[in-house]
């Protein structure tokens, strides 16, 4: 059983992927802070209410000679559809302050997720014993 199948790890992984994708959108927003008609984008919070961890999908093997690779995760997160705070006369809706706050929050939440992940690993190590 891969470690990512344990619910807490799979949820943390989803969370970290979400932060990763969000970071990309935020950096797009900041890079395009002066581009006319650019509308900033953001991700909506991931939904964990369906506590069932999403099982990793893999390709069906129709022949015994097929390699059972781990399918790439195609998690597509929803975009945040809320309206923006302000749009400048050029049609650009990026507020640098807003984006900087989001980048900082994204970074801190990501650190929280990685710290939890590390704690989870430490927990498993404790359960395994110190290799005595």
């Amino acid at each position: 059983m891969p470690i990512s199948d344990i619910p807490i790890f799979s949820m943390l992984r989803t969370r970290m992927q979400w932060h990763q994708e969000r970071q990309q959108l935020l950096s797009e927003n900041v890079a395009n802070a002066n581009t006319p008609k650019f509308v900033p984008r953001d991700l909506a919070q991931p939904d964990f209410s369906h506590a069932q961890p999403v099982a990793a999908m893999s390709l069906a093997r129709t022949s015994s000679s097929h390699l059972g690779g781990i399918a790439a995760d195609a998690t597509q997160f929803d975009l945040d559809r809320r309206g923006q705070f302000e749009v400048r006369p050029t049609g650009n809706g990026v507020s640098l302050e807003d984006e900087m706050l989001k980048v900082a929050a994204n970074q801190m939440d990501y650190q929280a997720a990685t710290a939890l992940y590390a704690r989870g690993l430490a927990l498993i190590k404790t359960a395994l014993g110190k290799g005595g």
Partner: protein
Amino acid sequence: MDFLKSMAVAASGLRAQAGRMRVISENIANADSTAQAAGSDPFRRKIATFRTQLDRELDANVVALGPVRTDPSEFVLKHEPGHPAADANGNVKYPNINPLIEMTDLREAQRSYEANINVIGATRRMIQRTLDILKA
């Protein structure tokens, strides 16, 4: 890795803002560049444009410097009969550059540049955290 994509996008922002700074500094440097011959036009103010473009390799919206446009507004006329570029009435055309506007523009470019640097720093720290899981 997605984080490297974020960094590449922010780097495209740095490049675009640096190009904009180059155009602005050109304007400031040429604020008093009059024409060589009498009656011809002096240096015309340049404006950097930005456009969003999809980088297919990164699969992300990066920013690029568009064509550098010229400002079509009127030149500033000054009465200097002794000037080599003066026309029949003794007027000399000076570039349509207002240093105050250029400085404000420069400040905005600087601020956007710093914002991109911040994004790169934040992304770098996130990568560092990912690597820290290995040490746990």
